[in-house]
């Protein structure tokens, strides 16, 4: 398995202390690369005793790196993370949108600040434990979905540019999650049975509401139907997202209630009944901050598929490239619960073409102003 010519290729692996990045490092080492493991510390939650939640993860990186036989280091990007990811995250919530900090973290931290750090260590490539694949043919780099469709993470990687991808490796892309667990177990890695992390990294297992409330003042207000009938009170618009059912506390007869929109100016949360309520459906989206991994010409129109949320099935769409960073997406069938702030990501078969941020949502020619 070890390839002699790989020994002069230096690969920095971002190790989080989880099983995925542990196996990524192991696989690269087995393939004979000059592997360096680096733990990134992006968030400071150190308490007065000096303990932070990153400690245990770092200790797992130490154990695994020693088992594999690679040097390990730590790098601190707390400031960069705060400035580039967390501020954006709060701004988006403040304006009633539902941001995706993982997309931003990949764009600004993992594949920018961290990639630069890796390069300053003389690395040829940066590798991570993402479930995605990179293909390199004739100088053209493409990002493909991970083999494991349950775990595919290209959605979160949609902002990576061609240049970034040319320096990136995803060693796990050709494996399924159960296979990765099996490899970790077989190799006896310390993280083999470690629980997968859930939720947004800096919030971790903490209560999301409580966490957000520490940074943004929650302004309770009314829950109303679109016709202005009061149905109850909400705890603050930022705690809700379009299509959400849980946590509304509206009882009574008939279909369950869902969040269909937000009025930020008047601090009203719009609710309506029924999972398939027509107000939840839309068929046209304006996407901003668009990144096309292999470039597109302004004015170009084409058919492909799209995901507007992670784990959503791809839906067929027609894309019109409006400008360098804007696109108009027409959905062939109406899509439920499109949400401003979330990523729209485009695919041609297995190839991820890139993506952007959902900005404006339309049904036919009508702009859905109520979604926030």
């Amino acid at each position: 398995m070890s390839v002699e010519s790989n020994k002069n290729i230096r690969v920095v692996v971002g190790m989080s202390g989880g099983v995925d990045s542990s196996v990524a490092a192991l696989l690269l080492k087995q393939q004979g690369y000059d592997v360096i493991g680096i733990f990134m510390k992006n968030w400071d939650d150190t308490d007065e005793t000096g303990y932070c939640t990153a400690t245990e993860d770092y200790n797992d990186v130490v154990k695994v790196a020693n088992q594999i036989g690679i040097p390990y280091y730590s790098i601190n990007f707390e400031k960069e993370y705060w400035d580039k990811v967390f501020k954006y995250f709060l701004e988006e919530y403040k304006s009633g949108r539902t941001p995706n900090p993982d997309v931003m973290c990949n764009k600004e931290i993992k594949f920018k600040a961290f990639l630069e750090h890796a390069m300053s260590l003389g690395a040829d490539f940066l590798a991570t434990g993402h479930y995605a694949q990179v293909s390199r043919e004739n100088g053209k780099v493409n990002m493909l979905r991970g083999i494991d469709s349950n775990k595919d993470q290209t959605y979160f990687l949609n902002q990576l540019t061609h240049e970034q991808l040319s320096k990136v490796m995803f060693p796990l892309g050709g494996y399924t999650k159960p296979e990765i667990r099996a490899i970790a177990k077989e190799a006896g890695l310390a993280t083999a049975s470690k629980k997968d992390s859930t939720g947004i990294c800096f919030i971790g297992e903490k209560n999301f509401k409580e966490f957000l409330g520490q940074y943004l003042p929650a302004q309770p207000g009314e829950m109303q139907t679109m016709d202005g009938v009061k149905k109850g009170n909400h705890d603050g618009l930022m705690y809700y997202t379009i299509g959400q059912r849980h946590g509304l506390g509206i009882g009574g007869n008939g279909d369950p209630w869902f969040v269909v929109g937000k009025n930020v100016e008047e601090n009203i949360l719009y609710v309506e009944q029924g999972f398939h309520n027509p107000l939840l459906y839309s068929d046209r989206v304006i996407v901003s901050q668009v990144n096309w991994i292999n470039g597109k010409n302004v004015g170009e129109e084409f058919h492909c598929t799209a995901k507007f949320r992670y784990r959503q099935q791809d839906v067929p769409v027609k894309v019109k490239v409006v400008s360098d960073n804007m696109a108009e997406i027409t959905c062939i069938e109406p899509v439920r619960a499109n949400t401003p702030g979330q990523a729209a990501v485009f695919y041609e078969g297995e190839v991820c073409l890139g993506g952007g941020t959902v900005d404006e949502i339309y049904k036919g020619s009508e702009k859905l102003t109520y979604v926030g």
Partner: protein
Amino acid sequence: MKKVYFDNAATTPVRKEVIDVMIPYFNDFFGNPSSIHSFGRECRYALDRARFSIATFIGAKDKEIIFTSGGTEGDNLAVKGIARANKDKGKHIITTGIEHNGVLNSVKTLEKEGFEATYLKVDETGRISLDELKNSLREDTILVSIMYGNNEVGTVQPIKDIGELLKDHQAFFHTDAVQAFGVEKIDVNELMVDALTVASHKINGPKAVGFVYIKDGLKFDPILDGGHQEKGHRAGTENVPGILGFAKAVEVVVEERNKNRELYKTLRRRFISLLNENGIEFKINENVEYCLPHILNISFPGTKVDTMLTNLDLEGVAVSGGSACSAGSITPSHVLVEMFGDNDPRLHNSIRFSFGHYNTEAEVDYVVNQIVKIIKRDK
């Protein structure tokens, strides 16, 4: 890969002659020095000789030497022990902001117990001001703890002058001499100190051994509750092989101190002139006049400490910079923060090189070459 160890302020390799002294005490003479049988007696005898030898080298009486598990414990025992046992005389303590955490955190604990502390400021070179010390002294000051030589930048404090200043004051004077012991002549009478901490592993002795000198007659409380070892001052069975190795390391280091000082000065000069020859921009964080010769703390403008440390390690060069937090990331050294304030680029671009007995000029050449290569590659 070539490996160079320039991190001797962190720890040092144990010398062969030290290991030789220790080996028999792991199995041939394994007794407990507190036991009254022959196995115990032979160890007790060895322990007493070690204590006497160390005491003689620093101008102390053997009963003034208490063996500990190292510098941190020594600092704890001296600072907390003396303060607590003498609180009837007052509750005020004076120390500096650049102490080792063994002292700093002991003082913080004492503050929680109701003691009051004054932390002396240092100037940009890491020196305290005697005037500030004089002005901080109060009638109820019972302890002054000021380190001899700083472990991060090497700056040496005016210990004799402080001793002189405190001569007519009730306050007891403790100094942490852990980093200085290998390169400075230490005589407790000349220095006029009441307590002094030394650790073995900084002078090519084994880890987890040290001693604290506490002047005869000075009251201090033990930190550990247990048996009557060390005359009741430090409970727990003595680390006999460690202590014997330590005593040997002290003997060797005292003998070779001047020679080592000269070596470190040579390495230092060569390091600096090579950096200059290669046109590297740098600033030395130190006090030119008063410094430990084996510590060279250099700021490289435009670089980042994590990147530099990692790159040097990848080239086999062991150095340090700042302190690693529990998640491994480098946080600025509190010593540099005290010297430069908390908003200075030097906090994030300074590297500590610390020399030891085994280092050579060829190693300096190699390390400087690597630094030049790394800085040029990054630009």
